[in-house]
Structures are given as C-alpha cells and as structure tokens.
C-alpha cells in the first residue's frame, strides 16, 4: 500500500485518462460524470462516504451511532446535493436500517448502510436474513466496543461477534483503504458466483475520526470498474419471485452448502478484484491478507485493522536493527485466509496474534482461527496471543515492540504465557 515520496507523484488511472490531475477542491468538489481523480484531506468516515458516493447506491438507510455518524452525515449531504441519484431513508433503528436496505436489495437496487457496535448487534437478526438470501449488500461497521461497560471507543468485539452471520468481513488499515475497499466490496458482493453481503470494518475513531491524505478516484474509472448491479436474485414484474422463503430440513443443508461455496468462490474473486483494482487505480491490498516483510522473518505478528499501520513502522525500525520480523495483515476474517497461515513455515519460529477482541472462556478470536489454520502434526512454529486495544486503549509502538520481544524470546526457546494482556495495569 505505501507509496513513498511526494504525494503529487499521483496515481495512474488506466482507462480513466492517464495521470490523475491533483485537483484542489476540498469538500464541495464539482461532481460530474467526468470528475477526475484528486486528493483530499479526509477522515476515515469521510473517505468511506466518498467511496460510497462513487459506487452510486440507489437506496441508503441508516441510523446514527457514534463513531459512524460523520459517515452518514456526509452521505445525507451528498444525497441532498444530488451528488448521485439516491433515496436516503431516515429509519428508526439499525434493525430497520438493515431491513430497509434488504427490501430495496430485494427489488434489485444497489444499497448501502453503516453502523457500529450496539447498532451492529441490533442488526444481527437482519444480517442472517440478508446473507441467507444472498443479497449483495455492503455495510460499513465503525468498529467499537460492545456494552457493558458502556464504551464508545474502538475495538473489534462487535464485528467479531458477527463472524458467523454469513457476511464477508473486511478490516482496513487507513482512510484510503476504507474508500478503496468499499468499491472492491461492491464488486465482490455483486459477483454472480459470490452474491453475498460484505461488511467493511473501519476502526472507530482511530480511522473514522483521523484525517489523512486520500486519493479519490474519478467517477468514470469507478463506473468502469463497477458496472451497475445485475442480479437474478430479485423481484420483478417480468419474472415474479418469492424471496427469503422457508426451506425445511429436506433442502436446508443444500441451501447452506451453496452459501459455503459462495464463500469459496469469494476467495478467488477477492484476490482477482484486488488485482484488477491495483491495475486500474494503482493501489494494492493483497486480497484476503498481506504479508509484510515476512520472507525471512523469524517472528511474525498477525493483526487486523488500523494497528497494521503502526506495526509497519515498528517492523521497519526493528529491521534497521537487524531483527528478522514481519507482519501478516489479515484483511478478511471471512472468508479466512487459511492457506496463508497453513503455509507459514521456517524460518518463522514464532507467530503472535494481536486481537482487539477476546472471546471469553477461550482467547482472541483471530488467534483461534490462525492456529487452527496452521495446525499440522509436528508443527514447529510456536504461538502467542496478545489481547490489546480494547475499548479504545491505544496500542503504541512500544507495545508492539514489546510483542516482538516476547516473540523473540519464545522463538529462542524460553517459556511465555500463551495469552498475554498488553498494558494490563496489574498482573
């Protein structure tokens, strides 16, 4: 993802008309079909809103919740300014938000909604309605702790709790990646072999409220990348349909088998979409997971979300000190990049997993997933689970350096407690 040097070097937009001009219109950009790519200084939520705008959903329904609010505020402004043709439904709850966008998706419209934390939990019932019937809906979740204790700050317990809702889940590292992933998400969701809803998770505050330089692709380029939604999975006067029907024991397994196959197809489609995106927009995210400086790494730390950016800086610094460290950035929790973890082998000696969640009575959820994928008899890689960043607690560079220190000790053969709480005020 990172491209060094002066940012005006610009981004190639093939098919979008050569080198993108650096436009200097912040906020009230002229939005025409021929709008060029340009840079803005935006919060993660605003960047996400730009991503949604470029995908032109026909119906948006959303209910406000911190820290998602500035995203839906910006979208309601776009709709009021007629930046794209869209009906924005001011619904009375998150449950209704998801029900309303499902209703519109049933009619064959492209739709969008966003929520966070308790709102996502309140939507939970609708999430399975949407995924079971395979409507290609895109949802942004601003990751936030779940009550109680009441806490509006970031962690990933909300979306991790929805792991088995049948939604594809992306976790992103930056505002730019939020914007880009939303565009990718629609293309993945709407792929006929996938036709599965996608949840794009953006760390609350750390990303949603942090301003950053964001390149906004041109509308034409996005339109070419993401053609209008076509699906047979919809109502129509020409081909009347019964949708979201009851399927009993006789064919329920067969229906679920289809869903699993859709996720298997999604693995390839996510990788392909990312490659196509990189060709068109010049930014690459490595599909379901990125390996950062892992080639000869002895100690590797696997993470999800914005902390990946901080880990990059620590890996870079430790590398200058000659330490062989690397990072796996898990971008998709579902489908899970099982092959990448399964292929983890020497020289890797220790793998740590940083979880901004905890599944009480066991361990961090990503840790369980990673270890299960890595399992084979006689495997020699040792593992540690770091629980950190809950309820908005900062994960500092020194916290991450400490994790690598522990991994190095583990790699060297010393004993380390498997489940570690980073920054716990007492031990």
């Amino acid at each position, binding site marked *: 993802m990172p491209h060094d040097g002066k940012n005006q070097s610009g981004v190639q937009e093939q098919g979008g008309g050569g080198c993108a001009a650096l436009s200097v219109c912040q906020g009230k950009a002229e939005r025409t079909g021929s709008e060029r790519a340009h840079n803005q200084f935006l919060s993660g939520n605003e960047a996400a809103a730009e991503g949604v705008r470029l995908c032109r959903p026909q119906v948006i329904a959303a209910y406000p919740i911190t820290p998602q609010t500035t995203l839906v505020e910006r979208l309601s402004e776009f709709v009021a300014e007629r930046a794209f043709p869209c009906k924005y439904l001011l619904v009375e709850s998150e449950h209704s938000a998801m029900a309303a966008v499902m209703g519109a998706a049933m009619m064959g419209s492209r739709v969008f909604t966003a929520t966070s934390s308790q709102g996502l939990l309140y939507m939970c019932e609708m999430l399975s309605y949407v995924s*079971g*019937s*395979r*409507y290609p809906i895109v949802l942004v979740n601003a990751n936030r702790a779940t009550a109680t204790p009441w806490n509006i700050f970031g962690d990933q317990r909300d979306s991790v709790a929805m792991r088995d809702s049948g939604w594809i889940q992306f976790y992103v590292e930056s505002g730019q990646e939020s914007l880009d992933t939303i565009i990718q998400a629609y293309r993945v969701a709407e792929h006929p072999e996938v*036709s599965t809803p996608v949840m794009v998770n953006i760390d609350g505050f750390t990303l949603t409220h942090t301003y950053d330089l964001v390149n906004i692709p041109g509308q034409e380029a996005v339109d070419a990348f993401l053609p209008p939604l076509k699906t*047979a*999975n*919809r109502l129509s006067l020409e*081909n*009347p*349909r*019964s*949708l*979201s*029907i009851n*399927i009993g024991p*006789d*064919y329920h397994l*067969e*229906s679920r088998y*289809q869903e699993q196959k859709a996720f298997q197809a999604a693995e390839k489609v996510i990788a392909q979409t990312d490659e196509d995106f990189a060709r068109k927009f010049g930014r690459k995210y490595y599909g379901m997971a990125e390996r950062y400086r892992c080639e000869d790494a002895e100690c590797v730390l696997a993470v999800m979300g914005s902390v990946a950016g901080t880990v990059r800086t620590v890996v870079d610094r430790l590398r200058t000190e000659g330490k062989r460290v690397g990072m796996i950035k898990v971008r998709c929790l579902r489908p899970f990049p099982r092959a990448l973890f399964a292929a983890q082998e020497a020289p890797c000696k220790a793998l740590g997993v940083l979880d901004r969640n905890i599944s009480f009575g066991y361990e961090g959820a990503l840790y369980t997933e990673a270890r299960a994928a890595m399992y084979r008899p006689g495997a020699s890689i040792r593992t540690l689970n770091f629980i950190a960043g809950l309820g908005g607690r900062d994960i500092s560079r020194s916290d991450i350096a400490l994790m690598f220190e522990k991994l190095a000790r583990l790699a060297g053969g010393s004993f380390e407690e498997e489940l570690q709480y980073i920054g716990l005020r007492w031990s």
Partner: protein
Amino acid sequence: MKPRLNKDYRLPASEEEMTFGTACATGLLTAVNSGWRTFRPVIDSMKCVHCLICWVCCPDGAIDREGRELSVDYDYCKGCGICAHECPRQAISMVKEGK
C-alpha cells in the same frame, strides 16, 4: 382458471437444479390439499342464485365461478364449511367424504 397442481414438478436432484439463494418462481403448486377434508361442499345448482357470497368468503378461493354453474375445486377445498354456512339459500350441503 384456478391454478393447478404442477404434476411434472420434481425436487432438485442436482446442484444445478437447486434454487439460487432463496429465490423461487412464484405460483408453484406441488401438492394438493384434498386430503385435509372430512366433509366436502356440494352445490345444489337448482337452489343457487349465483350471489357469489360463497365465492367471496372461501379462504382457499376454491369456489369456481367460471362455468355456467358454480363448482368446487376439490384439489384445494379444505372442507371448512364456510360456504355452506354463509349461503343465504342453503344451496350448499356438507357431505361426508367417502360417501
């Protein structure tokens, strides 16, 4: 014409025949309801004045008015007896099945 049972319908035998997601074509009848009845309505066309109250009141829409005389679609009549009970001319009698 009342909708009819699709006698040719076969449940999916392969992955390709399985419905996509939960999307099915509307209006597919794969079973009849005739086995639900203990009594069946029989219309005495001599008494019937074609007021259509039975046709309107039938929960199953099983009264057929398209012919010259009202008739009953016994594939889908469940024998509830509302038609007979509501008929102002007592033109419908409920007859025990099997007789």
